[in-house]
């Protein structure tokens, strides 16, 4: 693997972890527009502890995530009393407050940004991502996951059947914030330098967008969404250079590769939400994918055994 490819995989891994941070509350019918704020908290807390406490780096990222989860737990009780648009706006305000607050803390460099000494590579980050996927996949197969779906679709009904709707929503929100914080901590330890403005509202919006594009009814949705979000830009990298291989005159606007990829990503979202609002990975699609994988495995196994035959 080239270092370019490794780098891409790291970014994908981090994006997946963060995606679950948005996925969990959405699965419970809540939109957290403050994901970037929780990421920032996880990033800064882990970085500060890593730089100052002399703990093993792997511990510090969980401390960072813990801080994000703790903040979520504290604010969840008042904030989750609000619903719908009010909740979206309240979480959005919370994210803004966190970012603005960090901007004022000299201890972590304020607007200057903050350096992180420890560095994580793919070897550390990928297992954490896999563990995150495993945790969410497991939860989806318990009453916890079942009840979240029930709450998101019919809170009253779930409650009448004895589901502790408030507690579960708080749990989903908190666990989501934990994952967002974890993703932020990984981000800090991969880039080794963080600034408050890296964690703005636009980041929260992008995360929500790619999670919904992937789909929120299957554990695979956030992975697919994160993959699209990570790899789509690469297609548009050096668009003008590719173009110049065929044409003498390269129009100016082709050089705006990063803008192109965001524009196309956005168009994709709009079209997708029109045609298939449930996202790419529905449960049906997930089952089909599982069948296809099983089929491939069988084919491979068959091919191998038939090949071994004399």
């Amino acid at each position: 693997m080239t270092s370019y490819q490794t780098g891409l995989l790291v970014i994908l891994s981090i994006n997946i972890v963060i995606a679950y941070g948005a996925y969990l509350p959405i699965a419970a019918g809540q939109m957290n527009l403050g994901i970037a704020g929780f990421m920032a908290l996880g990033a800064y807390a882990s970085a500060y502890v890593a730089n100052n406490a002399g703990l093993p780096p792997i511990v510090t990222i969980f401390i960072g995530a813990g801080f994000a989860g703790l903040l979520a737990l504290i604010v969840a009780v008042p904030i989750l009393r609000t619903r719908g648009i009010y909740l979206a706006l309240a979480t959005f305000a919370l994210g803004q407050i966190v970012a603005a607050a960090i901007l004022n803390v000299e201890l972590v460099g304020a607007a200057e940004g903050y350096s992180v000494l420890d560095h994580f590579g793919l070897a550390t980050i990928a297992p954490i991502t896999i563990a995150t996927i495993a945790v969410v996949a497991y939860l989806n197969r318990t009453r916890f996951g079942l009840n979240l779906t029930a709450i998101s679709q019919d809170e009253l009904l779930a409650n009448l059947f004895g589901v502790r709707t408030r507690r579960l929503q708080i749990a989903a929100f908190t666990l989501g914030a934990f994952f967002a914080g974890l993703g932020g901590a990984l981000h800090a330890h991969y880039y080794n330098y963080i600034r408050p403005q890296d964690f703005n509202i636009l980041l929260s919006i992008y995360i929500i967008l790619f999670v919904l594009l992937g789909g929120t009814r299957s554990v695979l949705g956030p992975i697919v969404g994160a993959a699209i979000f990570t790899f789509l830009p690469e297609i548009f990298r050096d668009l003008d250079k590719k173009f110049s291989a065929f044409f003498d005159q390269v129009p100016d606007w082709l050089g705006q590769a990063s803008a192109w990829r965001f524009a196309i990503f956005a168009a994709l979202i709009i079209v997708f939400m029109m045609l298939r609002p449930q996202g790419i990975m529905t449960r049906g699609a997930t089952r089909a994918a599982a069948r296809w994988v099983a089929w491939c495995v069988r084919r491979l196994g068959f091919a191998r055994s038939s090949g071994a035959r004399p």
Partner: protein
Amino acid sequence: MSAVPALKIDNIGKHFGGVKVIDQLSFSVPLGARTALIGPNGAGKTTVFNLVSGVYPLDYGSIALNGADVTHVSQGERIKFGLARSFQNIRLIAHLTALENILLGQQIRAGGLRGLLYPLNVFRRNKWRDEARAALCDVGLEAYGDDMVGDLPYGVQKRIDLVRAELARPKLLLLDEPAAGLNPTETEELQAHLEGLTERGITLVVVEHDMQFINVLCEHVVVLNFGSKIAEGTPEEVRNHGAVREAYLGREEDEEAFSHAS
């Protein structure tokens, strides 16, 4: 009356805006019986169910389940007193399979955090899924277990709705128009099924417009009009009650239903 009633509604009232929807209503549901709650459209039947299950708070009055006062118990806790209900418009979770919808019915018996985190779908067998599947089999729906419930036919959805409520193992089950939209065969099956529930010791309260259905099924009928009780007794008594005939008069379909029944 000597025995504690399964449900005792004591002088309750409820208004929405300026409209008194339930007005000084009292009645009791005898334990182990099948009681019908009837009345013209808009009489307040569904509202009674909503008040009993705690969806709306009462304006005044009190409600007791099996002798326990639940007036101030929240909607999410009343199921602990052995209460379950179905809805007039089916409320299934469309994004879950039939089986998963039924698993939701078991929630109250699944226990606390351990029940919440117990794997339902990791190992091949587990008691909750087995129980849910068996319940589906009982009503002839084994083939639909893994289908998304939103795609299933209406009659099937109604049965799933009922089975889900049963799996909460309630002592008192409130059914809001369980026979609405069913064909004659399905209605007969439902009747037999509900009789089976009584044999298992479940007290039933049924809201239904189909008087034929009520006459066959229920031994005790409470008639509402404009949120108040206008008659109570056996189907026979109620049918011959002046106020009841009056309440239904002028409404052709209901009159028709009545003459069919008698």
